[in-house]
């Protein structure tokens, strides 16, 4: 499994899109990274606002439906930007990303966070009255927030994968 990922990363780094990103201009990767961080700011804040409304800590003058209608589209579009810039960074620096333990843990949390956020949005639209006071939904709101906080932290830790010791696939670890 490990060697397959390593081989794939090596192969990807020699493909023309990867070489284009690597050699086109020194500012390409930092620019993509900056857009990625801006998008994660939008995602994290949108999740925060929806979760604060579910928990009853903000947006008292708004129904949950109004809050999800306000922040849901921003969340979805910013997730799309994250996906595009994220894939671009993986293609541009495949070894750095794919051999990093932080990266795979982050991807797992992204899948989980997106799943729970989608569930919360759908539930909010269907059954708002019973939803607001339900303990499980409040727990899910806190969980999603923690997951997205974890995603942001892990994103930065990709640059410091040695912190995971032998769990990192990188040769320098």
């Amino acid at each position, binding site marked *: 499994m490990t060697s397959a990922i390593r081989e794939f990363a090596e192969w990807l780094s020699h493909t023309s899109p990867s070489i284009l990103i690597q050699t086109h201009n020194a500012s390409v990767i930092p620019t993509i990274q900056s857009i990625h*961080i*801006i998008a*994660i*700011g*939008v995602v*994290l*804040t*949108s999740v*925060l*606002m929806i979760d*604060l409304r579910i928990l009853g800590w*903000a*947006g008292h*003058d*708004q129904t949950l439906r109004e809050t999800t209608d*306000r922040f849901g589209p921003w969340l979805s579009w910013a997730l799309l930007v994250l996906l595009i810039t994220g894939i671009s960074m993986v293609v541009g620096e495949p070894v750095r990303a794919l051999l990093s333990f932080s990266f795979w843990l982050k991807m797992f949390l992204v899948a989980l966070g997106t799943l729970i956020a989608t569930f919360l949005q759908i539930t909010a639209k269907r059954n708002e009255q019973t939803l607001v006071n339900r303990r499980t939904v409040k727990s899910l709101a806190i969980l999603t927030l923690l997951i997205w*906080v974890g995603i*942001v*932290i*892990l*994103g*930065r*830790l990709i*640059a*410091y994968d*040695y*912190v995971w010791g032998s769990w990192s696939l990188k040769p320098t670890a």
Partner: protein
Amino acid sequence: MDIAGFLASVESSNLATAIRDSLYLFPLIESLHVLGLTLVFGTIVIVDLRLLGIASIQRPFTRITSDILKWTWAAFVWTATTGMLMFITNANVYYHNFFFPNEDGAARACGVERGDI
């Protein structure tokens, strides 16, 4: 004490040495710095979109600021604190980094602007 002396004393403080010598503290502080930065940015965007009349236009402006600005300030303090912790580990180099004075100046300008609202 001149600026070079001040930077040298900051850099040799126990706190700066502890962060610099640890394999884990700097990455952790930097990650927490990015976390704070994303929240500062995201919460300011919400307020600014309302000011521009692009989003949440049916909500009174004061409602939005009372919901949001406390998070902006908390995240701002968090980001400034973690930024300072990173700065002291290599104060002299960061001070002379071409980009740092600009970032610092921009952050202070935004802080003043927020305070004025």
